[in-house]
């Protein structure tokens, strides 16, 4: 029985679309996976000593490194959960064909849940915790306490693993929770409220009271049992295995008709974002980028001009980069229709461009709160916004023309992301997006003044606007040249 399941699993892995890509990509993906594992293992081995050094230098006030790690563990697990939520695939997809075969349902569920345990997301934390625990033992911490702590950490990892099975269906819970956590993180950073003051001792408790690892272990077991019964109940075509049906509402959006011809596509694009999980996630995450700049307001980049320009581009352009980079893949599931209908590429692209321009303008307005950190921040944000709308919008569309990854609109889970979306051409096109404005800034800021630097960025953006139509013609030609390849690529299913 196990052999059969293992065989199925192996075939689904080797024959998956992600694996079938060319050898080069396979090596890259494998390379990154190994680098990740090694980095985590390395972090586990040396973080203790690094923190120790920082404490001795007085950069961190704490009595010992273990305390510091416990303090920040809450964020570790939060990030773990967020990554799982977005990337970890739920095991329901391959279950349908097994249903009528002579297995008990219990076996199918155990197999599915067991599959989630051997995922990259559980192996990665182990690579951190095991070396870290070894270091703790070497450094003379109480062995029984350390082992209790270690089991507790791995139990929490498993707990999150099973928890994610449920979270998956709870969007309404996820985003508010994410917002609260970001707020907590920011408030800790600025010293308003420190959540770790409460969670740190909780993690230390597992060390101080060696019996207490039972608690997370039991919790992990309970969530496992719960997900087991939950899955068994859901193992019907009209229950958990059914695709979710939303109640549809026909929308007019006639107010957009004033945009003329492109309104036809604009209306569709807005529905695309509203009604598809993947697109919606991209849209919402685009707005979270607004807070990205906070990392640059202090710390190593604090006050540096490089940080300001870079942050401004990200804060205002989050949606532009994440959504625009995947045009026309958003329309991949009905690309044949688009290609056989009476659709001029230019209008199709222009509608996407306007969408990006409007959202970028809104992001720019929202980002203006950075003026709190100094008036130069406002100049940077405004210049970045103009540059993003003027030049980066078009450049991003240009990059998208080379991307041929079909997008499954209804799901937002893809382990390792869309590896196909990264290729040399798109990589090259990030240079004008990110590096050019920084260079322009320095060219003028060092020779004339900071203000001139910001003005130069904005002027480059405006120049981009002037040449927009010419660049659109170029993109149009690329679309035409790549048409048949794109259709063929989009016809491939995962």
């Amino acid at each position, binding site marked *: 029985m196990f052999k059969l399941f293992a065989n199925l699993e192996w075939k689904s892995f080797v024959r998956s679309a992600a694996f079938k890509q060319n050898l080069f990509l396979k090596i890259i993906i494998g390379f990154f996976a190994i680098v990740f594992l090694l980095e985590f293992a390395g972090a586990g081995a040396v973080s203790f000593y690094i923190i120790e050094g920082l404490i001795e230098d007085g950069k961190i006030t704490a009595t010992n490194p273990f305390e510091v790690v416990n303090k920040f563990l809450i964020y570790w697990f939060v990030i773990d959960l967020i990554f799982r939520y977005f990337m970890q695939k739920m095991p329901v997809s391959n279950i349908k064909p097994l249903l009528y075969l002579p297995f008990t349902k219990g076996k199918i569920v155990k197999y599915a849940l067991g599959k989630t345990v051997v995922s990259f997301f559980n192996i990665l934390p182990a690579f951190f915790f095991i070396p870290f625990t070894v270091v703790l033992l070497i450094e003379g911490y109480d062995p029984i306490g350390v082992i209790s702590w270690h089991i507790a950490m791995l139990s929490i990892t498993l707990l999150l693993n099973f928890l994610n099975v449920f979270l998956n269906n709870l969007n309404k819970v996820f985003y508010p929770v994410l917002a609260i956590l970001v707020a907590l993180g920011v408030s800790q950073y600025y010293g308003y409220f420190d959540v770790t003051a409460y969670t740190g001792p909780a993690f230390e408790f597992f060390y101080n009271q060696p019996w207490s690892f039972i608690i997370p272990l039991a919790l992990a077991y309970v969530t496992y049992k719960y997900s087991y019964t939950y899955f068994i109940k859901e193992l019907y075509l009209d229950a958990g295995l059914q695709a979710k049906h939303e109640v*549809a509402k026909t929308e007019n959006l006639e107010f957009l008709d004033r945009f003329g011809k492109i309104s036809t596509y604009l209306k569709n694009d807005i*529905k695309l974002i509203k009604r598809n999980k993947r697109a919606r996630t991209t849209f919402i995450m685009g707005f979270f980028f607004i807070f990205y700049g906070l990392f640059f307001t202090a710390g190593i980049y604090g006050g540096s001009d490089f940080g300001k320009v870079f942050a401004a581009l990200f804060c205002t352009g989050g949606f532009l980069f994440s959504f625009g980079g995947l045009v026309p893949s958003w329309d991949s*599931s*009905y690309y044949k229709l688009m290609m056989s209908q009476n659709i001029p590429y230019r209008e199709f692209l222009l509608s996407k461009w306007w969408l990006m321009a409007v959202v970028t303008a809104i992001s720019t307005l929202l980002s203006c709160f950075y003026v709190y950190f100094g008036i130069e921040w406002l100049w940077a944000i405004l210049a970045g916004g103009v540059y993003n709308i003027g030049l980066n919008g078009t450049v991003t569309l240009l990059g998208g023309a080379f991307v041929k990854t079909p997008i499954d609109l209804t799901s937002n889970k893809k382990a390792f992301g869309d590896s196909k979306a990264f290729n040399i051409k798109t990589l090259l096109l990030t240079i004008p997006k990110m590096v050019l404005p920084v260079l322009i800034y320095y060219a003028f800021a060092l020779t004339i003044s900071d203000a001139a630097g910001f003005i130069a960025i904005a002027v480059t953006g405006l120049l981009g606007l002037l040449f927009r139509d010419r660049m659109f013609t170029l993109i149009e030609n690329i679309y035409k040249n790549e048409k*048949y390849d794109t259709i063929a690529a989009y016809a491939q299913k995962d």
Partner: protein
Amino acid sequence: MIDIQNLSKKYNDTTVLDIESLQIPKGQSVGLVGNNGAGKTTLFSLFLDLIQPTTGHIISSDIRVDESEDWKPFTSAFVDESFLIGYLTPEEYLYFIGELRGQTKEDIDALMVKHADFFNGEAIGQKKYLRDLSKGNQKKVGIIATLIGDPEVIILDEPFANLDPSTQIRLKAIIKELSLNPNVTMLISSHDLAHVTEVAQRVVLLEKGKVVMDKVKDAGTFAQLEQYFMGISELHAVPVEENAAPVIIEEE
């Protein structure tokens, strides 16, 4: 008038389509039959310039489809679900196609009323997105969408498959009515010989990418087609005697 000359499509030396010459006069409705792999969908994809021909070309109303895009305004097609936009409601989809083809919302509303019997109380007004409809109901929407904007060339790939019996009967009526219109040329493929011989004025039979039969429909067409396909299946049948000892043959 559709003119196909020397059209072929090869994938790695495998020829999937090879048509020397095929002309379809304006207003004719042509039924395309053939087993799986005969090249029907390939022909349609070439027609819509979704794939490139290896040799030759298709000319539709004096426009070479792989060189100009001017055939798009007067051509409509429903080949498979990738012609539907899953996250739209059926109404929104029809309005969208309508806008692309220069129709007003009122025109589309009128079209939906006209074909209310075709939808059979399903598909339209169901508060569902297209992606959540059954295959049959998706197909209904796709087929009606091809009627928007008075197209002169209509391409339907297996329109009868997945349709319920009532809708099949209504679809036949719609196609027959269109085939009386001298401006509308139709290309319809089907595996159901009875449907094809009922609605088409001319039947083209494809086998392994080649045209093996091409004739104007008459009373005997159905019997001829049935005879032909029975012949193909007998050709591939393994005779009983040999079937008994396949291992020995292998060893030789």
